[in-house]
């Protein structure tokens, strides 16, 4: 089945959304500032390990092996989580996952849950589903808190509030955080301290925690959550009930495989040798942490991606977001333009596979790339994103033929086939320069030619074509 995830409400296809975003100069400054800083740091963290390519190839091989043997490993994971005292649930799609989680929260008698940042629950729109049942979900990751307070959408996998700078965040906290200390400045350390104070009571009072997981180890039933702030540890440790929603592709075969992924993930995502905190647990431990643990295994379109030999590699993704940070398109358009919880290059191949290419936004995503290949180069699990993009473009075209563009190409074939027709066409084209804007660019042609200018500017044609100039100056000798 094709999965479902929230397409951001009212979100137009990528080209239209990108056009608005590119015009937002503050957004572009924020993104350039953040991504430039992290690119340099990441390169240093990666350069420190002489065997980076070997780690990367091992990670790719491990993940491919898991995907090829997914049934065996899922059953093994289920068995070992159950043995360790956990409960395993299966969800075909977002609605089913949300219903399971809502039921478990209701069973626990909680009207409020604390959440660790999780892509899976963002994908299923869990918070909105819980709200419908009168349960409030408190996002505890600093960036998620910023997004939640601002009634905003996440725009980055790792740093959902990357589109906001410290001044904007300071302003938001002063306005929206009821217990913000008086005189709170824009200093990131002060902002982090305000978040600490704001959330402390929620952690201490929480009875249900909800998380995703970075890895699920089949042979030990271990779940692994990699984080920085300690909000993850709070949610995973203090509540009586813990519910983890995890995509079926998150499996690693064995405990030993963590040695590869714990080396790759922190360096790729936050450019650290190791992230501040990683929590690993299997089932329940009497006297330590939650007494009731539920693992919800989520399909939501993943088996569709699995069935696609080329597209399948997107399921290797470990959500490090290195590909976002190097992407020239992401840097200019920002995360919101992708209309999905998964933005950037990985989002451009993941969202259309999980949701199908039925909607205009999903059909446009595989085209949201210049195919420069920087994403492939930095990917710690060697996902060939350009290859997958081209493959998905073909699929999108199959589904949604771009009629106007095809008509234009047919028409150009007809024109180019005859010298007389070309000369006539060029005279018309030269006249069209009067519709060009400043800098000699045409931003919008009339339909059906608008199919071209929807996604790019057209250069204004010169006043005289080369052919006309040749005929005028050398024509006689010709």
């Amino acid at each position, binding site marked *: 089945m094709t999965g479902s995830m929230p397409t951001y409400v009212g979100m137009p296809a990528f080209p239209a959304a990108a056009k608005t975003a590119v015009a937002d100069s503050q957004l572009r400054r*924020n993104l350039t*500032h953040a991504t430039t*800083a*992290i690119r340099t740091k990441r390169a240093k963290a990666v350069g420190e390990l002489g*065997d980076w390519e*070997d*780690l990367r*190839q*091992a990670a790719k*091989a*491990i993940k491919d092996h898991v*995907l090829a*043997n997914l*049934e*065996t490993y*899922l059953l093994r994971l289920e068995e070992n989580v159950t043995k360790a005292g956990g409960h395993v*649930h*299966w969800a075909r799609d977002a609605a089913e996952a949300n219903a399971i989680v809502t039921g478990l929260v209701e069973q626990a008698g909680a009207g409020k849950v604390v959440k660790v940042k999780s892509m899976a629950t963002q994908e299923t729109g869990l918070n909105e589903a819980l709200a419908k049942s009168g349960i409030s979900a408190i996002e505890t990751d*600093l*960036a998620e808190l910023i997004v939640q307070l601002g009634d905003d959408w996440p725009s980055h996998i*790792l*740093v959902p*509030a990357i589109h906001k*700078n*410290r001044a904007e965040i300071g302003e938001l906290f002063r306005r929206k955080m009821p217990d913000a200390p008086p005189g709170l400045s824009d200093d*990131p*350390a002060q*902002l*982090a301290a305000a978040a*600490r104070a704001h*959330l*402390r009571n929620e*952690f*201490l009072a929480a009875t249900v925690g909800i998380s995703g997981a970075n890895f699920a180890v089949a042979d030990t039933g*271990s779940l692994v959550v990699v984080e*920085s*702030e*300690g909000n993850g540890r709070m949610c995973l440790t*203090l509540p009586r009930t813990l519910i983890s929603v995890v995509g*079926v592709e998150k499996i690693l075969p064995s405990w*030993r495989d*963590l*040695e590869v992924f*714990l080396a790759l993930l922190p360096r790729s995502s936050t450019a*650290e*040798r*190791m992230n*501040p*905190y*990683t*929590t*690993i*647990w*299997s089932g329940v*431990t009497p006297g330590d*942490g939650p007494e009731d643990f539920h693992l919800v295994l989520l*399909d939501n379109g993943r*088996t569709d991606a*699995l*069935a696609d030999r080329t597209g399948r590699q997107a399921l290797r993704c470990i959500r490090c977001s290195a590909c976002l940070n190097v992407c020239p398109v992401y840097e200019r358009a920002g995360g919101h333009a992708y209309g999905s919880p998964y933005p950037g290059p990985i989002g451009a191949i993941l969202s259309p596979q999980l949701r199908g290419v039925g909607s205009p936004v999903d059909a446009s995503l595989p085209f949201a790339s210049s195919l420069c290949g920087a994403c492939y180069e930095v990917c710690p699990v060697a996902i060939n994103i350009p290859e997958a993009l081209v493959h998905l473009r073909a699929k999108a075209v199959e589904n949604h033929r771009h009629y106007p563009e095809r008509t234009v190409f047919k028409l150009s074939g007809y024109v180019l086939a005859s010298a007389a027709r070309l000369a006539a066409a060029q005279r018309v084209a030269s006249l069209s320069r009067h519709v060009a804007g400043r800098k000699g660019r045409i931003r919008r042609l009339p339909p059906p030619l608008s199919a071209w200018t929807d996604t790019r500017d057209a250069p204004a044609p010169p006043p005289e074509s080369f052919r006309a100039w040749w005929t005028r100056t050398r024509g006689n000798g010709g």
Partner: protein
Amino acid sequence: MSAAREEILARIRTATGRPSTPAEVDAGHAALPRGYLRAHHDPAATDIVALFAERAADYRAVVERVPADALLADAVARAVGALSPADQPDAVADQSGAVADQSGAVADRPDAAPDQSGAAPDQPDAAPDRPGAAPEPPRIIIPQALPAEWITGLPAGTIVRDDPPLTARELDAIAGVITGCAVAIAETGTIILDHGPGQGRRALTLVPDFHLVVVKADQIAADIADALARLDPARPHTLISGPSATSDIELIRVEGVHGPRNLHILIAD
């Protein structure tokens, strides 16, 4: 089993073909290429204790090397004493007496302790870092089976035991925690707790704002691979690399969010 489970498994089978036998899958896993290094610094050619100290300090942990076990108690007392400078004179004054009667002094519970040191009885909701609160010596929680000789230098009335277990709110009124660890990783400056004896349940090293951890030199593994191999996967684990931090504002690392904001590591050589 559930219809969802059966349907997902059927869809996977359609996508991947019939599954191999578990033995074939395991053989496939064993044959995967692993050309990477098991350690990025050769433990035979590197002082990995020094490497660990340097790497842990890189992430703003306070790192001290303690050359002899006999000096640990002093180092612990100094680290705890430095917690709140205002209390320093009291702490120092108490220290000599505490050494003598430490065995009897470690049984205090926050709600059971009559004020021994003359300080106001601690209220669980009195956050230790609340500005304007009356100065009180910082209370330190210690897990079961923490070596008694590590804390002989601590003032008597300040030690709290997690027996019976404190609630999260009670823990929030505790200034710090002292633990050992299971393993450490030199390459990444990481300590790993398996929450066994001397380390306490996970909440103990999470809620208080100060974590003092004693790492023995022989617990330091050169790299991630060796460290993981020393652990028992059945146990819960916490990997800690420096104090709590975030990169959520402009992708710049800032120390100090929800976990302990001060991590102090004593390496016992």
